[in-house]
């Protein structure tokens, strides 16, 4: 979408330029009417621009208040103007020498400015500008309306035990939530503005001393180098800061949960908060973080370890179950126990397709149902599951187009993919099984072995912000590997945060990068 925007508007405005930069050098005039007409020309055909002239007392100079009523809470503005101007009124002259540009006279956010560029930028972020007759300076008051929804439980990552608060679309609120989790001055945040037209605020958050400095540097560099006209969602940032032309597996963690981000920060990772989206990015990630759920750390460790193992088991099922079925039934029938083979054989007797075609058909059908289920309004969802599950599944078996064993295999695989806790990771993993089904259908178990090797090679070669994707298995770290196969128990007195940083630093050392 941003690409299209760029193409169509190129003739009018150069897209590469900051939205307000063309006004950077221009200063205000001291004539109120001139200022007003300049603003009205700049914001022509913007229905939300309000220009209002007021006079406090008969002999006082006239003032011009300019704001965008979509961004400004007018009640707040009234209060601000009343309090700050009443104060200014009394000792206007006494204050003036001290108040220079960029400074403010009261605790509330008040900025003095004299250039159009800055004033327009402030106007667009919810400030109201107040011009005074005969003065070439404007006072900008912050009175932004809080366009914020209530905190809700994140629907993409529900937990049974754990915080029910999810991030919202406002960046400052989100960062505030993190501050509630980590009350330390070492929690640092660095501001970036990305997107020439959208001027999206991007915040890089990390814990000083815990986060690997080289990773923070890399994130900084990559965000600063983004050249684009618009950022609407964290997906765009994710795509632009990961150097991979074919990112099948995610190199950043996407989450709606502040506790997950706080946990990541405590492990020395870096969070990227983007305005207008509740999804926060955490980097770097490894293959194994894709298999961990926020809840693992809230449950007792044997239970969490068990569910981790179940997930590993079903990760393998999700990738290999249909291909194993295809390979065994079309190449290696001697591997199936006799009575099972007999029942598979009788189920397959009326089916006209080879097992591979049958399985692919079912897999694609399943993906279609899933896709339909995700996008549908809730009211129709019921219909889809009935039509999909009962009509298609049952009728296809009854009609002898599909055999029951492959329905079982495909639905098991479908369930297995849902066990992967991080949805962006699961999406990538789901795609892996299609090439392997093809391999299994043409080469049998040998094809699966090839496919497995291919996947392993691919995963091992990946890196997320300099950290190898398979850390801590490869490169191996005995201290950190405990948290991969087990959910290692917390020990009183030992820091929760140490291992992850250690491994990431170690990993960087091994590849010869970094310097710490």
């Amino acid at each position, binding site marked *: 979408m941003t690409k299209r925007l760029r193409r169509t508007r190129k003739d009018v405005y150069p897209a590469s330029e900051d939205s307000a930069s063309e006004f950077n050098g221009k200063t205000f005039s001291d004539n109120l009417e001139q200022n007003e007409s300049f603003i009205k020309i700049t914001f022509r055909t913007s229905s939300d621009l309000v220009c209002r002239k007021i006079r406090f007392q008969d002999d006082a100079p006239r003032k011009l208040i300019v704001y965008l009523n979509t961004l400004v809470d007018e009640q707040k503005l009234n209060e601000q103007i009343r309090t700050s101007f009443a104060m200014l009124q009394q000792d206007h002259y006494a204050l003036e020498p001290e108040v220079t540009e960029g400074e403010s006279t009261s605790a509330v956010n008040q900025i003095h400015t004299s250039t159009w560029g800055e004033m327009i930028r402030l106007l667009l972020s919810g400030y109201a500008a107040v011009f005074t007759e005969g003065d070439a300076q404007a006072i900008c008051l912050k009175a932004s309306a809080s366009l914020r929804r209530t905190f809700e439980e994140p629907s993409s990552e529900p937990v049974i035990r754990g915080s029910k608060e999810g991030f919202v679309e406002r960046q400052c609120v989100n960062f505030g939530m993190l501050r509630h989790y980590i009350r330390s001055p070492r929690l640092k945040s660095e501001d970036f503005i990305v997107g020439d037209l959208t001027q999206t605020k991007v915040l890089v958050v990390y814990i000083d001393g815990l986060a690997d400095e080289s990773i923070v540097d890399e994130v900084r560099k990559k965000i600063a180098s983004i050249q684009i006209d618009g950022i609407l969602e964290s997906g765009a940032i994710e795509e632009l800061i990961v150097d991979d032309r074919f990112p099948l597996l995610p190199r950043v963690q996407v989450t709606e949960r502040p506790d997950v981000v706080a946990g990541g920060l405590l492990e020395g990772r870096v969070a990227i908060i983007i305005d207008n989206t509740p999804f926060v990015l955490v980097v770097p990630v490894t293959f194994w973080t894709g298999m961990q759920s926020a809840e693992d750390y809230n449950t007792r460790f044997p239970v969490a370890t068990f569910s981790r193992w179940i997930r590993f088991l079903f990760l393998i099922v999700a990738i290999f179950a249909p291909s194993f079925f295809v390979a065994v*039934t079309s190449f290696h029938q001697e591997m199936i126990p*006799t*009575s099972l083979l*007999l*029942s598979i*054989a*009788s189920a397959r*007797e009326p089916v006209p397709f080879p097992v591979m075609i049958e399985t692919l058909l079912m897999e694609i059908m399943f993906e279609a149902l899933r896709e339909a289920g995700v996008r549908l309004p809730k009211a129709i969802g019921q219909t889809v599951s009935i039509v999909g599950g009962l009509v298609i599944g049952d009728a296809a078996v009854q009609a002898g187009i599909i055999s029951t064993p492959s329905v079982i295999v495909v639905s098991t695989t479908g369930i297995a993919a849902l066990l992967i806790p991080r949805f962006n990771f699961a999406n990538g993993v789901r795609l892996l099984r299609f090439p392997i089904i093809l391999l299994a259908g043409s*080469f049998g178990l040998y094809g699966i072995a*090839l496919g497995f090797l291919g996947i392993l090679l691919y995963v091992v070669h990946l890196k997320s912000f300099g950290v190898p994707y398979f850390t801590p298995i490869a490169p191996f770290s005995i201290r950190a590997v405990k948290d991969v196969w087990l959910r290692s128990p917390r020990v009183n007195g030992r820091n929760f945060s140490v291992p992850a940083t250690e491994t990431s630093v170690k990993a960087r050392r091994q590849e010869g990068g970094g310097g710490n």
Partner: protein
Amino acid sequence: MNRCMSMTITMLLILILGTGCWDRKEINDIGLVMATGLDLADNGQIQATLQIALPASSSLSTGGGSKPGKFFLISAVGKNGLELEQKLQQKLSRTLFFSHRSVILIGEDLARKGINDILDVFNRNPRNRLKTYMLVVKGRKAADLLQVDYPYELAPAEALKEMEMLKGEGTIVTLRDFMIASATGGMYPTTGVLEPAAFHRPGEKTADRLFRINGTAIFKSAKLAGFLNNTETHEFLWFKHNKRTDKIAADMPDGQGNVGYLITSSNYKIDVDSRSDPLKFHIRLKAIGYLFENNTPLDVTDPKNLQVINKALEDHIKLDMQAFLRKIQTEYHTDIVGFGQELQRHNPKKWRALEEEWDQYFKAADVSVSVAVTISNTGAIGPPLQLKEKEIEK
């Protein structure tokens, strides 16, 4: 970069296409052979009968209605295994698939003539399983028993396989065991024996055919030498490490009733005295088990009574064992237990001298038996509950 890429892709393609197994066979394209029956044909050649599973289509099986056949048989006569396979394949639209064959039945006539001509094909082709069970059909043609419509399993071959797997009931011999015993010096191979039996379907007067495992067939240079009956077979099981869950019913002396004993673990040892002439062997049998049945007035909670029972069991086993030994020594002259092997381990030099004439030496050998039975559990009660107080012998 491009050259490197194309090289990699070429090499990968060679790797994939050069190695892959291109023999994809759908399940619908294979004929599952469940059992093979081998018989002597009228012209002296071999007649092979294959039992092929008939997978019922699922719509039929859910519909109930008419009962579809669970299997069908095809047979052909030929000189050797390959010729038979070709002739059988000509009768079938699906590829014969031998990997799931669980049983090979050999008719008595063929077994007496010798099975050397046919055995090799079962071992050479890797698609055959060495874990296939071998059985000799006593007094009948193997093909007859393959026709039995067994009430439980999908195919009678499955039933046979599962019957064979019940330990302690009879001789269990797989192709592999047969080959090992056959190739070992100082030992002769054996197989289990299958006999026709009968059962009644409800509401039908006439009996349906069934089969039962009963006895042991003894082979001598791939020819059937003779059979052991059920009692002798159970003694033979001592040496096959297959005595677990075997049951022994022993009479008490003085007509005091009888006891039932279930063996939970057994062991045997053969001592060899190689210097003596004739050769002397001593078999030491050890068994641990439960007293399962007590049809005597004895109170088995008393160790003294238990000793009496022990003695009766030991005598019973000893007697049966001696009968078994007599039979293989004097009637068949075949050392199926492996005394020769024991001698070979004990005194290889002597064995090499006797090897050629082993049957004669074995026939003349002096074999003695001693038995040690341990009763580890007598159940929850002492004497039988129905007895009056004064009938019980303390």
